[in-house]
């Protein structure tokens, strides 16, 4: 396919990662990652919403009056989020209960609004779609890393299955319950940013 721009997918994974570099969409990234499964579902939902809303806004970009563009964007995004919410409630009800208000908060997730403003308003639908997928995946990487670390050390399991064997617990191993508390999410993101910037010197702030 002509003009299929792989850079749009590749860049947000590391160099322009939405969470660690663009600082978008932190709220949900921290709140849903105490377990791997909700983190995965959340990442998938956000990817779908970003990609589709990017396409829709990109198609409409020449007809939206600039003064009311925020409202138009919010309406498009909240429509998509309602659809995602209904699908989640129908197929994975337990996870949807765990995510509680955070599905609704995808509407105000800065990744969605940020990409719409920065990319979809000035680019073609196909490019916008790829940009949405790329940013969704960049967000997913961080969410899944956080989910794995927090669930493994906090509850000794992954995806709800026990990973750390019982013999460890008999020898006196204990789960670190701080891991599933909110503060540890913040500190872990801080550490991820640290490692990421230490490997990419040009991203450091002065």
């Amino acid at each position, binding site marked *: 396919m002509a003009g299929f721009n792989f850079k749009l997918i590749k860049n947000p994974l590391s160099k322009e990662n939405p969470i*660690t570099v663009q*600082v*978008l*969409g*932190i*709220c*949900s*990234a*921290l*709140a849903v990652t105490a377990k791997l499964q909700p983190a995965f579902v959340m990442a998938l939902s956000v990817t779908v919403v970003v990609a589709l809303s990017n396409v829709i806004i990109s198609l409409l970009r020449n007809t939206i009056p600039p003064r009311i563009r*925020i*409202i138009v964007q*919010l*309406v498009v995004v*909240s*429509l998509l*989020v*309602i659809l995602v*919410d*209904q699908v989640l409630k129908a197929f994975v009800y337990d996870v949807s209960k765990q995510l*509680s*208000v955070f599905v*609704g*908060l995808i*509407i*105000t*997730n*800065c990744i969605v*609004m940020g990409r719409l403003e920065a990319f979809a308003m000035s680019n073609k639908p196909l490019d916008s779609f790829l940009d949405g997928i790329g940013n969704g995946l960049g967000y997913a990487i961080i969410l899944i890393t956080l989910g794995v670390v927090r669930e493994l050390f906090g509850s000794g399991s992954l995806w709800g299955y026990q990973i750390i064997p019982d013999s460890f617990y008999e020898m006196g191993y204990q789960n670190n319950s701080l891991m599933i*508390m*909110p*503060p*540890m*999410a*913040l*500190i872990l*993101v*801080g*550490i991820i*940013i*640290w*490692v*990421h*910037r*230490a490997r990419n*010197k040009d*991203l*450091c*702030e*002065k």
Partner: protein
Amino acid sequence: MQEIINIFVKSIFIDNMIFAFFLGMCSYLAVSKTVKTSMGLGIAVVFVLLITVPLNYIIDNYLLKEGALAWISPKFATIDLSYLSFIIFIAVIAAMVQLVEMFVEKTSPVLYAQLGIFLPLIAVNCAILGASLFMQERQYNNLGEVTGFALGSGIGWLLAIVGIAAIREKLRYSQIPAPLKGLGITFIITGLMAIAFMSFLGIKL
């Protein structure tokens, strides 16, 4: 009355918007460079929360909830419109923010000069929509409790952002490893502040 005060205190310290639910992190990180601007944003958030959350509560109770339309005619008692709540809430918030901005501009130019730039930002602040969604999920009993909740979460958010801004002003003079500067250290300090706020968890109200 006691119930309202309980909810108010609880939503400032125990269920703090930033430290317990990470709501409004984006503007929290972006605008917390100086105490003065963060104070302005914090006050604007309290202001908008106080208007939108009770308003959304009324809409939720008389229009959206299952059986809420019964006051029009008993025929509507089985209608459940709660799946529309996302779009209605965000529309109310966006409209109210616009109205508040126009109202403040006309009536108090001084306040407008201070809050003006922040008001449009607030429409997409997750703390505002989050508070409305929490209000819906926690099922408060009356308008008083909802107002207490809105005021409490706003003040909690204000405390958090002014606190981090004060720390960041001092941080500028300290030596931090280059990759950790700026964003990284802010996250870690917010984590430490959240641990401090965890000590309120033991309080039962």
